[in-house]
């Protein structure tokens, strides 16, 4: 394993120091427990929008802290959900009478740790709600299992919920818009290579030279199916089939298409995949009205991509377009 780190034990805090140094205008970092907080938090009258999860998915979540998006992010150890005390610290640093919305990706660890934190915050008399995002169509949805994972849709949810809070929505309304996004967003991912967790030192799974993992998550968990490598046209089409049939998305729908790199995929390939996805959606009569292309929710150095479709209406489109100023996402400011 070759990595630009000093010590696997301190990799998360060492990295947070760089984030703090680079973006002191937007955010500040607390180190024990580790929390990334908007520079001007707490913002009076604003519902605090808070998310978090294991590290290794950067820029998610710390790179989305700032104006118009997250009030705080809680980074756990690499691929390990943060603990309740850290979530509680984020709540305490940001939450006013307006309350807070916790955005939780649907993994057992995240759900349990955020749940505990939410209970602690409520015990302190704060109005804290949670929404759980589970947009990954690769996983069969069932109440008898852990259910679907939260993946690419999380980025869109954080932007839109943050925008709703920014326009002055009360907690009920921020929560409602978040639930609307969760209802209308679906994702699917593929991996060409595995990530290497620093303290583990070897790749999380083995892939043959001509194999890809279809339906991958963002933690180096293997995907749902191992398939032979195939041309980009076929692969993107396979991904869209899985997505479009799930929600389902209909002819005439307006959508946001988010083409995401899992970290190690060259932008050359990412735009290539994006171009194919736009063409194929066009052929299905689905209107791509907004797009996001880049590495926004990653799995360390893993090569691969995910596609996320969000069905848009006027409200979601306006919230998406509204100004945002964070390390990783910025427009209108």
């Amino acid at each position: 394993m070759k990595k630009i780190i000093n010590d696997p034990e301190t990799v998360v805090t060492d990295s947070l120091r760089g984030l703090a140094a680079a973006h002191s205008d937007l955010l500040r970092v607390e180190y024990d427990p580790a929390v990334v907080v908007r520079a001007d938090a707490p913002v009076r009258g604003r519902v605090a929008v808070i998310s978090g999860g294991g590290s290794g998915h950067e820029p998610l979540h710390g790179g989305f802290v700032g104006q118009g998006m997250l009030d705080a992010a809680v980074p756990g150890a690499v691929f390990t959900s943060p603990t309740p005390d850290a979530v509680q610290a984020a709540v305490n640093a940001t939450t006013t009478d307006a309350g807070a919305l916790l955005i939780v990706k649907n993994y057992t660890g995240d759900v349990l740790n955020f749940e505990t934190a939410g209970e602690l915050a409520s015990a302190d008399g704060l109005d804290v709600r949670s929404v759980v995002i589970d947009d990954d169509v690769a996983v069969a949805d069932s109440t008898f299992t852990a259910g679907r994972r939260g993946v690419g849709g999380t980025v869109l949810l954080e932007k839109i919920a943050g925008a709703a809070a920014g326009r002055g929505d009360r907690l009920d309304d921020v929560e409602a818009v978040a639930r609307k996004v969760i209802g209308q967003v679906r994702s699917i991912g593929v991996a060409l290579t595995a990530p290497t967790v620093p303290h583990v030192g070897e790749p999380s799974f083995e892939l043959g030279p001509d194999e890809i993992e279809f339906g991958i998550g963002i933690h180096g968990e293997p995907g749902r199916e191992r398939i032979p490598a195939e041309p980009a046209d076929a692969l993107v089409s396979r991904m869209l089939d899985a997505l479009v049939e799930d929600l389902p998305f209909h002819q005439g729908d307006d959508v946001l298409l988010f083409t995401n790199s899992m970290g190690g995929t060259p932008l050359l390939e990412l735009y290539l995949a994006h171009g194919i996805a736009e063409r194929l959606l066009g052929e299905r009569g689905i209107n791509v009205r907004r797009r996001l292309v880049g590495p926004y929710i990653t799995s360390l150095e893993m090569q691969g991509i995910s596609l996320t479709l969000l069905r848009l209406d006027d409200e979601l489109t306006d919230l998406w377009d509204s100004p945002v100023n964070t390390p990783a996402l910025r427009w209108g400011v």
Partner: protein
Amino acid sequence: MGCAASDVAAALRAAAATIAEHRVELTDLDRPIGDADHGENMNRGFAAVVSKLDEGVPETPGAVLKTAASTLISKVGGAAGPLYGTAFLRAATALGDKSELDAGDVAAALRAGLDGVVARGKAVVGDATMVDALSPAADAAEAARGDGIAALLRAAADAADEGAGSTVPLVARKGRASYLGERSVGHLDPGARSSALLLRALATAAGAA
């Protein structure tokens, strides 16, 4: 022979040593069906429990377990953190402020811990989780209630070993392994394995005491 706070603390130190020893194994079990961190998570948590005990051992067995619980909750992270944390917390609550435990107390604490895991994680036996180790262990402990703490814990550890082994042929229905569907078959669940290891360490510590 009874079991005081200092015995519980010693048993937890033994458990921490076992986890440290099996750190790589637990992480390796978590690689094919999970995210390769279970050994790291557990080791981070139990090392913190030892540090906490180094600062001073609380007065009652229940208080010792409560300290362990809050340390595990704030240090382990992942799924295992809140689940083990809850288990220790419920066990501590079951013991109240007793200063000396008998075999029946230990069996009750195990049962309470299991119930806590089930309450939080909603897994049942056969879902291929730590519940598959803890549930037969709690049953075996109750059955061995008359044999003294050391024998009771040995019976529980034996049952947990067997229960952990039983996860191999199962399709996982909870935790990260469930994302794999049928591909989760053929793997020992890491959390079931760590539960079995913990019980074995407690049994060994009780036997030596």
